[in-house]
């Protein structure tokens, strides 16, 4: 395997939500992201995907644990210089294309924001030239620089957001549900653009989404999250061929098939009950209250997140280390 770009070690992010109550949004998550790959992160609403992404991006201070970028700790307190360096290498694409662009700014200022704050002394014309180059890269035109965000469609706005993130040549991009607010026909456009840019600039992505088939299309590896923890992590092919965790199996069985005949025969694993509140997580395995294989062991001890075969990690008592 190629070298590790980003390593997350036992990362926890708890929020205080009242007296003696903590919401465990991200609870002891560890994984690695390799250089040049796309790691997809899926899970249902409220399972902590976005919190994880934002904690990696230093928007939240982690409760404990570490984030290492190229072997250097970037979580916790950094000097101004280190912080700037960090900003230059990691960027984020946001979920809602309507909220992620300042409605009062012109496109040229939105895209150039990174250039401005990185102290690169550019003349007006150089700055605009750079912006036009970025806009053309994401399929927009020179004429768009003087426009305001409200004049664009959702897909176009999302591409402006991508251009903004690319302005300072990052190596690593967290894409926080970049397509979930878009129309299906536009989703493919944006995902293909992300793929193209990845080849061109050898980017590394952490791609957060809840549409598992879209994630399969773009990702090399997929991680599945449930209630703040990773339950399974493996290559996207293995994930679809041989899902191990009961939760992953249920998720995969919910994907509709394009072939109507196959779709008719598709059998769904329907999960009982609802997700427990992340404020009040059951003992033992987090999934035990909804798992049809749950045993006493599951209700008592929390399973470790371990590697059952080469590159296939799972947190379930049914799979012991070989």
């Amino acid at each position: 395997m190629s070298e590790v770009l980003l390593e997350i070690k036992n990362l926890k992010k708890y929020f205080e939500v009242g007296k003696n109550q903590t919401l465990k949004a991200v609870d002891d998550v560890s994984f690695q992201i390799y250089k040049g790959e796309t790691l997809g992160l899926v899970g249902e609403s409220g399972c902590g995907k976005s919190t994880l992404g934002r904690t990696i991006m230093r928007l939240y201070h982690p409760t404990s644990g570490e984030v290492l970028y190229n072997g250097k700790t970037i979580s916790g307190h950094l000097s101004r210089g280190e912080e700037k360096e960090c900003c230059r290498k990691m960027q984020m694409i946001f979920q809602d294309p309507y909220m992620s662009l300042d409605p009062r700014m012109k496109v040229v200022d939105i895209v150039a924001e990174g250039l401005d704050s990185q102290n690169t002394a550019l003349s007006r014309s150089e700055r605009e030239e750079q912006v036009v180059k970025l806009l053309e890269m994401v399929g927009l035109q020179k004429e768009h620089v003087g426009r305001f965000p409200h004049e664009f469609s959702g897909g176009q706005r999302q591409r402006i957001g991508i251009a903004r993130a690319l302005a300072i040549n990052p190596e690593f991009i967290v894409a926080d549900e970049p397509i979930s607010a878009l129309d299906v026909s536009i989703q493919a456009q944006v995902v293909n653009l992300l793929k193209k840019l990845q080849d061109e600039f050898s980017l590394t992505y952490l791609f957060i989404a809840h549409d598992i088939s879209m994630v399969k299309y773009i990702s090399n590896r997929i991680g599945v999250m449930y209630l703040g923890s990773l339950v399974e992590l493996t290559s996207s092919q293995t994930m679809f061929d041989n899902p191990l965790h009961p939760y992953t199996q249920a998720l995969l069985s919910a994907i509709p098939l394009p072939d109507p005949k196959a779709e008719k025969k598709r059998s769904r694993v329907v999960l009982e009950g609802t997700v427990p509140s992340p404020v009040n997580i059951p003992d033992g395995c987090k999934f035990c209250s909804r798992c049809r294989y749950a045993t006493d062991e599951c209700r008592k001890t929390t399973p470790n997140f371990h590697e059952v075969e080469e590159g296939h990690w799972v947190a379930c008592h049914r799979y012991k280390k070989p």
Partner: protein
Amino acid sequence: MQNKELTKDLFVPSEAGVVEREKISRPTRSGFQDGWIRLKQNKGSVVALVILLILVALALLGPVFSQYNYYTTDYSAIFQAPNAQHWFGTDKFGRDEWARVWYGTRISLLIAVVAASLDLLVGVTYGSISSLLGGRVDAVMQRVIEVLIGIPNLIIVILLMMVMPAGIGTLIIAMSISGWVNMARLVRAEILKLKNQEFVLAARLLGTSNRQIILKHLIPNTMGVIVINTMFTIPSAIFTEAFLSFIGIGLQEPKASLGVLINSGFQVINSHAYLLFIPAVVIILIMVCFSILGDGLRDAFDPQMRI
């Protein structure tokens, strides 16, 4: 109608390339232009705006048209009704009322605009720092505001007037001491709403400093609230000044403000009602027009109503 068979050769791929597809044909308009266009559609606001502009022009230029000034007394011509010589008549010392009314309007507007600008400056700075830093700083800053609100405004003003010499400066300071509180609260609420929005997070990730975030993102997006609140602060400052002058702790003769004029007109209401009537009409026009314009601006710049 003839039923035509649809065959494949009737269809050709569209020639529109990428350029065509991404084109926006509408002319570009900023939020300000949008608001201006909507304001122009609101008849009441336009009328209010025109009346205000006329009043401001008269306040600045009115005394020029008259050969008299606001302080020269003429005991041979006291209490003259409006006539060709003295358009608004004269008062008990024979001073020209036309000159005094517009001079008074000028002073009243000056006090109001300066007081509103101070409110704006202090309120916006205080509110944005308080909301952006958050946590303990925010809590302390909010308690300070609550204490200021707890003290009745009039008491602060009257105490200050007793300590400091009566005059325009004292009036402005007295009104500004607690006047900015409202603005600070509004701005804080607005920025609390904005600061976790994704475009602010994106700015932070791009390494934009707090100062730049306030100046480039937060304040422009709060501009609507700020402008509208200012539009309501100005008439209330005019009113406070008039009230203080009316009860006798504001400006002193021979200086004139609308409040001073109304006060001296009030004393002779039975015999010379025009001395009360004219400044009263001016102050009413100012108050009503500012309120209508403020309402119109609020509607015009409401981002939820963007077309």
